């Protein structure tokens, strides 16, 4: 197993509030890695460091190392360039106010892909991978805002795929979706891990259990336990993990 992302003693704080207290973890290539934990556990903060969106927050301070394929992304990396390789899907679907086609083409256009045929191909391929193509192929020109919530979230996934990233971060992507839409997203993710390294942040332990290969449990800014999902869920080594998985708190 290749290590795609190596996190070494990662600390983050906002002012005097420490939100990550020294996290060390290896994320493996072409796997779905689940980050779970109650709110305030720091799991979303890690994501915002991986895509450096944390740069837009006031007063964030980061220490430690995060290596993507061995290269540190904390020091000396341009956030804009990084985000062309690291795709993000947010908790709520946020379509840009333009057509379905233009939503998907937004990222590629930023990378100076303007050839019509090439864009058409990227749009088709991305929508297919996100399991949305069949539902929208005849109406790519309509406003993305007209889609249902579940479709919008798959559109956001497709838009991320159009960047052709190697890492995809999903920050509670199904928190606002109905079970059917959730199932479609999960189906897409299971297929996508062949080509991408996926990190799924979720409050939903069942979802993590269903689709992630490796899982990490976060609590109060610390990583309590990490391992293969099956082992972690059937035989957690730490009491806190067991309590969380079995729903005693959350």
């Amino acid at each position, binding site marked *: 197993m290749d290590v795609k992302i190596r996190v070494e003693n990662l600390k983050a704080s906002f002012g005097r509030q420490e939100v990550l207290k020294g996290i060390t973890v290896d994320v493996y290539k072409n796997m779905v890695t689940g980050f779970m934990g109650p709110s305030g556990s720091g799991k979303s903060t890690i994501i915002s460091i991986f895509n450096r969106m944390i740069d*837009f927050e006031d007063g964030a301070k980061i220490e430690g190392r995060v290596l993507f394929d061995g290269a540190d992304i904390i020091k000396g990396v341009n*956030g804009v*360039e990084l*985000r062309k390789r690291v795709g993000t899907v947010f908790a*709520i679907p946020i379509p840009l*106010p*333009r057509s379905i086609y233009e939503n998907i083409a*937004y990222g590629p256009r*930023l990378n100076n892909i303007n050839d019509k045929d090439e864009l058409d191909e990227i749009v088709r391929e991305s929508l297919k991978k996100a399991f949305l193509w069949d539902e929208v192929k005849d109406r790519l020109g309509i406003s993305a805002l007209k889609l249902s919530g579940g479709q919008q979230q798959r559109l956001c996934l497709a838009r991320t795929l159009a960047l052709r990233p190697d890492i995809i971060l999903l920050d509670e992507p199904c928190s606002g979706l109905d079970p059917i839409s959730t199932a479609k997203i999960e189906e897409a993710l299971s297929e996508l891990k062949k080509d991408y390294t996926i990190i799924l942040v979720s409050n939903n332990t069942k979802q993590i259990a269903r689709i992630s290969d490796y899982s990490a449990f976060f609590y109060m800014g610390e990583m309590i336990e990490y391992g293969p999902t099956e082992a972690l869920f059937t035989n957690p080594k730490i009491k806190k993990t067991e309590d969380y998985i079995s729903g005693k708190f959350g």
Partner: protein
Amino acid sequence: MRIKPGIIDKIARIGFNAQAFFTVGILVVIITIIFIKGFTHINLEFIFSSPEDMGRHGGIFPSIMGTVLLALLSIVFATPLGLGTAIFLTEYTKESAFTRIIRFGVESLAGIPSIIYGLFGFIFFVIKLKMGWCLLSGVLTMTIMILPTIIRTSEEAIKAVPRNLRIVSYSLGATRWETVTKVVLTSAMPGILTGIMLSIGRVVGETAAVIFTMGSSLRLPTSLMDSGRTMAVHFYILAREGISMDKAYATALILVLSITVINILAYYIMNKVVSRYS
């Protein structure tokens, strides 16, 4: 005695309807008067010929051109400047004492009566810079005058764009500049255009500040250094000097009609843009 909520609702509805009708009514009355008094004096010759005998006879072609040139050039100067300021204030700086000072300055400028801008333009452009009464003096003065309107409306429009759209744009690898131009400005376009339309209205309707800076020559301005007369100024002089009330109303009617046409055109363009980005 307790009044039934249903009755209050009814009274409120009647009241608000009456107020709306009153507002529209005034507009209709003004336009009707101008139409009745001016319409019979309008013909192609009036639009396309020059005035004779101080405007007692002939047409208003130089004034139409003067108005168009003044409004167009003022917008061309003020829009990039005002929009740039608004973008700077909203997207490129954090809220600080510095931005508050700029914003306070803009607010203050917006409250200054136009005659003050006229006096400033007269003293600075016309006298100090020795530009004389000319189109350029007028344009620069009008630019300063409408700048606060454009800055404020643009800023409001830009602020109204949801933060989430910016986040998404950044997350897809966009730079700040790409995010501003591709996402923020396209979404803020209707608001920005409203500010531009308001500004055109102010320039086209301005008299005192224009007389002070652009002068009131009846000749067609052929360069930036020529004096000229806008329709509003022409109307004002014709009416005040008692030269010809018929020509004055005809001028007013052309003025009202051209503003209407500009408005319709602008909203047509805006709808095209909005339907692409919604």
